[in-house]
């Protein structure tokens, strides 16, 4: 008695799923970091063309496993996959939008943009080796700023995130001890400090803790008026976070030599590049089973890269520079059949 009912329900479900698939709809899953801008783009794209993009922000790890399982048309990840891993699954990979990460502090009397950091100093703070704000190394690069004799409290993300991956990737680039002791990842074993959930969790702990330092995405810092610090780039200049500085990093990063765009932009060369920038990567099949759907997805990304800049800017994301867009389009023509 029970079995036929289950079978009927299952059949109805399958029919429903097939019915949904036959409609012109693009499905994607992955990174939570790009969700706001992807949602905006898909709503605009829907209005312009009538094609729906259904994106589930389940996290980069989820995005990677979903595309490998073939349940979505594209996956999105904050951490690029190595060409070998891509080849194994027959996947193509390209960047889609730029974000950046800022150190934020809560020190009485220090306002946004006043404090300067170098990469090695940031790493030593997060390693727990620099423990007070009046440390001589901090004072040496911050002449004129009155640094109090306060203990430093490190605040990091508790949830696994692309923000953490890019932040720890940067610290690994500029400090060998960080690289060997902690390394880089969406979650790491933090030598010190406490963890807040999401940008809002880190922001809340930094605001509530005098003498704290955390790292937060650019858009969130600007929208919440937090006290960020400038960071020294690889050319030795202290760079304030700004859209041109992020685009400079994307432009000077050596994309041409990176197979499948497998490149993390942190500590990018160039005199005007902001050092802690990040991209989110889209993963798609090179030889998809359903070519129509992949073509529709590519059409959407072409539209987003060429016409999505105003929406991205409004949400404090940064669009890819035109030269990089051309490289991506050439890559599509070459790799995705």
């Amino acid at each position, binding site marked *: *008695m*029970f079995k036929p009912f289950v079978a009927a329900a299952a059949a109805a479900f399958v029919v429903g799923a097939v019915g949904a698939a036959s409609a012109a709809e693009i499905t994607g899953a992955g990174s*939570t970091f790009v969700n706001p801008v992807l949602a905006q783009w898909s709503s605009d794209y829907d209005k312009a063309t009538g094609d729906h993009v259904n994106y589930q922000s*389940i*996290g*980069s*790890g*989820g995005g*990677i496993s979903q595309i490998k399982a073939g349940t979505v048309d594209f996956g999105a990840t904050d*951490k690029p996959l190595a060409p070998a891993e891509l080849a194994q699954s027959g996947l193509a990979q390209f960047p889609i939008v730029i974000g950046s990460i800022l150190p934020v502090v809560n020190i009485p009397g220090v306002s946004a943009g006043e404090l300067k950091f170098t990469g090695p100093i940031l790493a030593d703070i997060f390693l727990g080796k620099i423990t007070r704000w009046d440390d001589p190394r901090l004072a040496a690069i911050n002449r004129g700023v009155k640094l109090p004799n306060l203990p430093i*409290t490190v605040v990091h993300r*508790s*949830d*696994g*995130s*692309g923000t953490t991956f890019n932040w720890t990737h940067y610290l690994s680039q500029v400090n060998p001890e960080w690289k060997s002791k*902690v*390394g*880089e*990842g*969406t*979650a*790491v*074993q*933090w030598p010190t*400090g*406490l*963890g*807040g*959930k999401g940008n809002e*969790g880190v922001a*809340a*702990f930094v605001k*509530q*803790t005098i003498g*704290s330092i955390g790292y937060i995405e650019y858009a969130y810092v600007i929208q919440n008026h937090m006290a960020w610090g400038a960071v020294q780039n690889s050319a030795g200049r202290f760079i304030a976070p700004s859209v041109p500085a992020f685009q400079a990093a994307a432009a000077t990063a050596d994309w041409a030599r990176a197979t499948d765009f497998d490149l993390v932009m942190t500590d990018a060369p160039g005199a005007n590049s902001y050092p802690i920038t990040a991209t989110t990567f889209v993963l798609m099949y090179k030889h998809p089973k359903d070519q129509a759907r992949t073509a529709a997805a590519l059409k959407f990304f072409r539209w987003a890269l060429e016409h999505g800049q105003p929406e991205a800017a409004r949400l404090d994301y940064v669009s890819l520079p035109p030269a990089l867009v051309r490289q991506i389009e050439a890559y599509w023509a070459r790799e995705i059949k």
Partner: protein
Amino acid sequence: MTTSASLPLSTAAGQPTRGAGDQLFRMLCFSAATLLMAALSGVVISLAIGGWPAFKAFGWRFFTTTTWNPVTGVFGGLGPIVGTLVTAAISLLFALPMAFGVSVFLVEFAPRFMRQPIATGIQLLAGIPSVVYGMWGLFVFAPFFAAHVQLPLSEVATPGSLLDKLTAGVPNGANIFTASIILAIMILPYMAAVFRELFLSVSPQLRESAYGLGATPLEAVWKVLLPYIGRSAVGAVMLGLGRALGETMAVTFIIGNSHDLPKSLFDSGSTIASTIANEFTEATSDMHYAALIALGLVLFMITFAVLGIARAMLGTLKTY
């Protein structure tokens, strides 16, 4: 006449249909029950299979070490396991007397017009989603606690004293103690409601006899009512404990999320549920994934043990 004629007819026609209906009903009930058991064992089996690589790789060290390093792929769950037990225990310490007081007041002392509003208020507390408790904890309670409890205490405590050791920590309210308080508020309504039901289940004769013998309200509650509900009360406590063990979102917001063993009451820590909620979505390596699922199995076992005890305690209610 008509009734006597139709009566045998209806039973004759009704008998087979009722039989088929009964059979269908029985099968449906049976399927529901077995489906639930199948789902339960399915959960255990899939957790065991998913967590097996972690158990195999780390063995007992998974339960006895605090290294939790997703980069090198070395995982020890002692920090979250201890954090889970400690926060649940502290929350119980606060919630139990409160729940007891609330229920005794409602049953024994409250004027009639106050009973319903208080009971409804407690039910409303139970209805608040846990993420709201978390947000409230993070943005309201933690700063308040830091400014009005943690800072004054740290100023009063002499360095090296027991108080100093207990209250050492960054004064921002993100620690296992505040997480436990939030948990206490969350489990309070459940426990108060069950206590109230238990007190109401005491027969009026017993209560009136106690008062008739000249017992004060304190004596009546302490020496007559409490022994009467006895073990069932332990069951109620265990239900609260079960909820405290598994609570996720509210704790994640406020516990500070460090995988080390908490060194003081005001140190940040983590629980099994908060660790899984934090890291599961972005766990890209297989071992990280396995370690999180293994933690899930540990939590399942702890909760299962607690609820098992609760069931046993509640089961003895029938003997009264």
